[in-house]
């Protein structure tokens, strides 16, 4: 291999933010370089400064930020010396950004064609006509369905996956030398994410570009990147080729991060996740020693007193740790795998605690105007005749893409939505579909934890108030002041928070701490069932591990059952005894976790599992890709709802007849026309189904 010149090189960069008249140092002595054709992963938790660094590489900083020291060289030129005016010639033409949230990143008022065309009109001096042709060509390259049509559409008319393709098409349309990908798949479903990742790999190679891929998701990084830099507290902890880093992490932070991933069911089902204790240090007081010292399991005095330098190891790895020689020789015995835990009791012995039968929920009302004009009424069938049961002290995981109706079902159960039809039984008693008719007892026994802890807590109530109020209401006001205080302390301790937290307000808590308070609130009155809607999806990996462990412990201690909703199959598999897979308002598969993960399974489940990016770069992706999006719940396909995307469709029967609910043994059910044995055979032999055609 010939000596390569990096396309971009940052050397000892320091970036400060000005907050309340003081400079805060957020990026500290960071060096990073990317060679042509390389995809460089930048991993870190939120607050690690990864987005700031990524944008700084484009010489784009917030108004209150500055690069205090260091240099950034792009294609041999000093980027930091350039004025904004000069940068406008480079942005969009030589360095392009693929942003995190494609819907927010596109102007809602202009068509897709206009917004893609704009960039070539600006940099390639194309006419309006020519820019539209170029835009169309790019849309075809990113394999979007119906590109001619997309050109004239507005952002709100497209799905997240399509919008992300649009931003990629836009970023590539000027053939830039460097792409900055800022968490480009975070907002997408796992099946869409898998397709987009394939696309990145292909397009980056075709365009001879280099890319910086920013992500908190170790799985996608392993699948996509050639080299990875791990950032913590604004400092590089470790930087290495992807195989070395995942196979043999050396920095204690990297080791902790990889160990805190909930991986596939079979290996870790009955285990506890490794967690990294503590939280990231506040940047207001950057420690004089190693920034990770407070959380490091192998910390020594030297770490607290002196900051380790960023060293280059013999194998070319960048490393910031005093103890790397010992770690490299594996002398410190740092645990790199999750810890085993007791197995739980047999599933069938546990009584059914919640049984929901034939729950249906539709949205939309026929307006007077529509009735007058005789327009056909087409409601959204979000949950369509779904039955589900949860056994005591067990967890049922509910998975599916966005739009599958899983959140709607959960909300119907806790009566945040009133189901149109259906019976819900809790602890053997029928409970009303309407919230106002539910007894306090029903409310107490069925609690919910929400996805976003920031919205779930009233910012004007202290933690103690929030818990106290719940205790008060659920006891019908009978709880004494003393008992209440005692119970609050118990609850806080149960979620590993100290009693002082009772006095704090949500603004003083981190995301993980807020979610713990929300969980404490759900457990306030010994519920029988806790419905948790994506409880960890807004949290960092290391925090996620803490919360998942907490949920597992609480289940054992408090004897509650969970209905756990998540799009993240690893999270579901980690915590669940049984899994229900939902597609377009219907449950397509239900069974014990092992059974669902093993063959045979519904083709949709198969695709979902296969789309999970493995945090092991040697396991290069899977073959099954679902194309297109979940069809609209206003217009549900006939026959099997999944037939429009199914890689294993067998013929007209799939389009015409609703598939049966087939028993695959041991309480494992699959809704599919393909006979169980055939399905098992196909999947066991890894018969590679043809990927479906792009959907309109």
């Amino acid at each position, binding site marked *: 291999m010939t000596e390569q010149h990096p396309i971009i090189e940052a050397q000892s960069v320091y970036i400060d933010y000005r907050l309340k008249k003081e400079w805060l140092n957020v990026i500290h002595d960071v060096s990073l370089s990317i060679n042509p054709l390389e995809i460089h992963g930048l991993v870190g938790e939120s607050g690690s400064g990864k987005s700031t660094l990524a944008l700084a590489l*484009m010489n*784009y900083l917030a108004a209150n930020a500055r690069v205090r020291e260091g240099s950034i060289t792009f294609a041999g030129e000093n980027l930091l010396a350039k004025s904004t005016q000069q*940068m*406008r*010639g*480079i*942005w*969009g*033409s030589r360095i*392009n*950004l693929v*942003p*995190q*949230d494609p819907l*927010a*990143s*596109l*102007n*809602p*008022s*202009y068509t897709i064609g206009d917004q893609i065309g*704009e*960039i070539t009109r*600006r*940099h390639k001096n194309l006419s309006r006509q020519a820019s539209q042709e170029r835009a169309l060509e790019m849309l075809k390259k990113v394999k979007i369905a119906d590109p001619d049509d997309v050109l004239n559409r*507005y952002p*709100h*008319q497209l799905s997240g996956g399509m919008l992300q393709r649009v*931003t990629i098409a*836009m970023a590539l349309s000027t053939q830039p030398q460097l792409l900055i990908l800022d968490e480009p798949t975070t907002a997408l479903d796992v099946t869409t994410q898998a397709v987009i990742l394939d696309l990145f790999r292909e397009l980056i190679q075709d365009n001879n570009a280099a890319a910086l891929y920013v992500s908190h998701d170790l799985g996608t990084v392993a699948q996509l990147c050639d080299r990875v830099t791990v950032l913590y507290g604004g400092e590089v902890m470790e930087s290495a080729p992807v195989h070395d880093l995942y196979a043999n992490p050396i920095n204690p932070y990297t080791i902790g991060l990889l160990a805190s991933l909930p991986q596939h069911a079979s290996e870790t089902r009955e285990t506890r996740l490794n967690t990294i204790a503590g939280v990231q240090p506040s940047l207001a007081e950057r420690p004089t020693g190693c920034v990770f010292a407070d959380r490091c399991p192998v910390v020594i005095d030297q770490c607290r007193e002196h900051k380790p330098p960023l060293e280059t190891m013999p194998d070319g790895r960048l490393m910031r740790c005093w103890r790397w020689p010992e770690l490299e020789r594996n002398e410190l015995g740092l645990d790199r795998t999750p810890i085993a835990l007791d197995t739980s009791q047999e599933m069938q012995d546990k009584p059914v605690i919640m049984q929901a039968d034939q729950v249906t929920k539709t949205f939309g009302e026929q307006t007077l*105007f529509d009735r007058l004009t005789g327009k056909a009424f087409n409601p959204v069938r979000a949950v369509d005749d779904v039955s589900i049961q949860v056994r005591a002290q067990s967890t049922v995981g509910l998975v599916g893409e966005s739009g599958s109706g899983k959140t709607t079902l959960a909300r119907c159960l806790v009566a945040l939505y009133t189901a149109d039809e259906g019976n819900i039984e809790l602890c053997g008693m029928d409970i009303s579909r309407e919230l106002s008719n539910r007894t306090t007892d029903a409310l107490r026994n069925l609690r919910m934890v929400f996805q976003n802890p920031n919205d779930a807590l009233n910012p004007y109530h202290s933690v103690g108030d929030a818990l106290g109020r719940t205790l008060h209401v659920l006891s019908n006001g009978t709880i004494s002041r003393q008992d209440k205080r005692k119970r609050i302390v118990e609850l806080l301790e149960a979620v590993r928070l100290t009693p002082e937290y009772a006095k704090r307000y949500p603004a003083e808590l981190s995301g993980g701490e807020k979610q713990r308070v929300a969980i404490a609130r759900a457990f306030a009155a010994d519920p029988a069932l806790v419905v948790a809607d994506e409880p960890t999806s807004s949290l960092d990996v290391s925090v996620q591990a803490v919360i998942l462990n907490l949920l597992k412990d609480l289940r054992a201690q408090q004897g509650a059952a969970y209905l756990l909703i998540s799009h993240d199959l690893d999270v579901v598999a980690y915590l669940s005894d049984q899994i229900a897979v939902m597609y377009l308002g219907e449950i397509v598969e239900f069974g014990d976790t092992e059974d669902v993960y093993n063959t045979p399974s519904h083709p949709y489940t198969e695709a979902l599992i296969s789309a999970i990016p493995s945090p092991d770069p040697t396991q290069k992706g899977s073959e099954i890709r679902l194309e297109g999006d979940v069809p609209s719940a206003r217009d549900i396909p006939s026959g099997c709802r999944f037939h429009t995307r199914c890689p294993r469709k067998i013929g007209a029967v799939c389009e015409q007849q609703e598939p049966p609910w087939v028993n695959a043994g041991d309480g494992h059910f699959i809704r599919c026309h393909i006979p169980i044995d055939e399905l098992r055979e196909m999947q066991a032999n890894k018969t590679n189904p043809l990927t479906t055609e792009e959907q309109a």
Partner: protein
Amino acid sequence: MGRYVLRRTLLLGVTLLITSVVVFALTQVLPGDIATLNTSQFASEEFKEAFREERGLNEPVPVQYVTWLTSFVTGDWGNSFNRGNPEVRPLVLDRLSNSLRLAGMTLLIAIPVSILLGVVAALNEDSWLDSIISIFSLSVVGLPEFVTGFVLIEIFANNLGWFSSTSTSIPDGGSLTGWLDVLILPALTATLVLLAYITRMTRAGVIDELKKSYVRTATLKGLPQRKIIFKHVLRNALLPTITVIAISIGWLIGGLVVIERVFNYPGLGRELVTAVQSQNIPMIQAIVMLIILTFALANLAADVLYAVLNPRIRLE
């Protein structure tokens, strides 16, 4: 889009129908006997009775309403109670056209100036320029119109002699310069009232939009600042401002009583006050209906413009 406009128009019809009931009801509950008020103080009871009979005032109220509404819609707005009982329509339409001219002139000045000020303030958020714009626009909105009006007269009419101070000499048929001479000072006075609202709305809108990710996308496409602001930001930022402007049109048509007094301008607002004072019911009804109609039309126009600019509404 067609559906949307149709729907809005139907709603507008319903609104007008409801307000016509209210307008009619109001004139019914005004104190005083109409016949007594509108005949000579020496008129005999028979004469008054004849007056009532002739005007249909003895009919049941619903019948009176239907009669009134039908004739109003067909263009017969009745006769004024004033001396000589002149027809209401030509007089009111003349006042309406004066008011529309003044409103148009005001918007012509107010919209570009305040949007520009709002954008400048937003782009320099929290700087001295922003403070100056805020303080200026808020302090003039606090001053009553007769104060700002007289100050403007003092400066531009009396000292500089650029424009007329009163509008008694409305030009017939109207030369443009003649109209400008009469309109500018009252329009400026009204502008000073509107300035703060529109500027503040624009400023808030632009600041909100500037924080959105699509602005960063546009910047990182390498687009020039000018294009980012005028193409990308303003189109979204002005959406709420459009509504504010539409609402202000109602005020410009019927609410400029003080300004019309100060400049002696023959607009609808002043005419309405005179009509109310003399319980000139046909005049009140016609003027109020016109004000409501203009107001409703302005809002319809705003809704349509809103939809044109905002595909999320247009394509629903």
